[in-house]
């Protein structure tokens, strides 16, 4: 007589995920205006100003939003008034999350975006964008850290994402 002893199976605690694909807006051939969406993180304003200076646009809308929470309807509306919105700065967990989620909100409303994240948090930003169906969201990197650094250091670091953005706009 054969007796078979088997262990009970264990069930997986992992879950299926919700997925809705987001179609990104193309960068327009001619950009008349840009908006700078500053999430008030340390150095975000310097990064955005440096990028604006290098890109050279004169018609600029400036908006501020909370770092660890969604932008208000008014803030998002102001940011959506331009042909392109540049968002900064994702350099922590919740601010990266809401930078990316607000960029996706803008994309859904028809505004193309480019998000600036520190290189430490960019992998998470990309993963989050994938989870929200926007795997090809435009994200550029700035060297971490910026918080607690002097202005000149932040300006220097911002030249790299500025060059990346220039490349994206020139489609090179």
């Amino acid at each position: 007589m054969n007796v078979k002893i088997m262990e009970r199976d264990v069930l997986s605690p992992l879950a299926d995920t919700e997925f809705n694909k987001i179609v990104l807006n193309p960068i327009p051939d001619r950009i008349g205006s840009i908006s700078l969406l500053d999430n008030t993180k340390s150095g975000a304003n310097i990064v955005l100003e440096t990028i604006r200076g290098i890109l050279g646009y004169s018609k600029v809308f400036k908006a501020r939003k909370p770092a660890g929470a969604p932008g208000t309807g008014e803030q998002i509306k102001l940011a959506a008034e331009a042909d392109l919105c540049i968002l900064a700065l994702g350099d922590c967990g919740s601010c990266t999350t809401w930078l990316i989620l607000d960029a996706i909100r803008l994309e859904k409303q028809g505004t193309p975006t480019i998000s600036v994240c520190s290189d430490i948090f960019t992998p998470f930003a990309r993963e989050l964008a994938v989870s929200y169906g926007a795997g090809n969201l435009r994200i550029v990197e700035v060297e971490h850290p910026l918080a607690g650094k002097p202005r000149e250091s932040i300006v220097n670091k911002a030249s790299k994402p500025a060059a990346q953005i220039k490349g994206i706009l020139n489609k090179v």
Partner: protein
Amino acid sequence: MVGKDTEKEAHQKNEDCKLCGIDELLVKNNPKERLCSVQEADFEIFTDPDVEKVSNEFYIKKQTDGLPIIPPTKTRVDKFIKYSDLKPEEIIAILPPKRGKATLEKVAINSVMAGCIPSFAPVVQHTIKAVSQEKFNLPGVNTTTHPIAICTLVNGPISRELAINSGAGCLGPGNIANSTIGRALRLSIINIAGAVPGIGDHATLGSPAKYSYCFAEAEDESPWEPLHVERGYNSDTSTVTVMAAEAPHNVNDHRSTSAEDLLNTLIHTASVAGSNNSHVPGELLLIMGPEHARTVADDGWTKEDTKKYIHENALVPLKLGDRGGRKLDEKWVKNGMVKITRSADDVVLVVAGGPGRHTMISHGFGTSSESVTLPILLKDGTIAKSTDEFRDK
């Protein structure tokens, strides 16, 4: 189990066996000396998996909080599912950042792993629903570098039915409900939401409060109305309240004899520059020991008076709150001081704990999250008086 039949497959084989008459079972000269020629074995015995082995396997896959787990077998998970009026596949919430579907079954699996007993299921289920409310801001709470945990407070008769500790040591170890309900939420956050430390949860240092942070209010010990009544529910309605909160910090005051003196000690402990509240004012959780609450109430102060006094006097000097130019919103600044709460209602005041003259304070996540209180309801919207009402629905 690799290389072995699953329990389900074994059952299927039993179904497929057509030779189970007594004659076939007694057939002689079976070359393999088995009673039944179709079955691989005459008897199949199922044993529970080894706890240490399963804990290690799950740990390696980053599916635990680092502590051993109870293996989530179907038998155990089914016992949980019986304590809900939802179907196993019904989605309670979508949990960010991974946007995992928190079905009843997945929440039950994580609850079993946490060590919950099945009657805790309705509380865990409502806690998951509560954290998914928009104003709670779970995307931010789960991913932040800030060491914010999720505090779960249970009010009403179900808190007593489940013997959730509201007395001595209620924020510490020793009670299965306090220890495992909070842990079930955390494991769900790790496995369903994808907030794995260092991957989806980016807390710089984390917090011991992320293991479990659950207690009940000592409603019978409080001189004031409990939180759920303050928020509009009847005292016999059971509720769960979730709040994004830091690990608690003690306020020791053995000597104050007046409400004002005692509250000033508390205010001084809460008004610190390093909290989120000092630059983005928000909720402040006060878990007041019953003896402290009695000192305040005996001085004639209502709960509303107490909250108002704390709101108006819990201030941080602007030069500390705005150090380095944190870009404080001007609306929070008055006469060079920053209020750490936006209104008296941001002072979330509850009574819990045993004898002694201590209170715990927990700073919140600033303006970025607001606590949520939900009644524990059956699916048809009726108030559950007991967890038994969820059973076998």
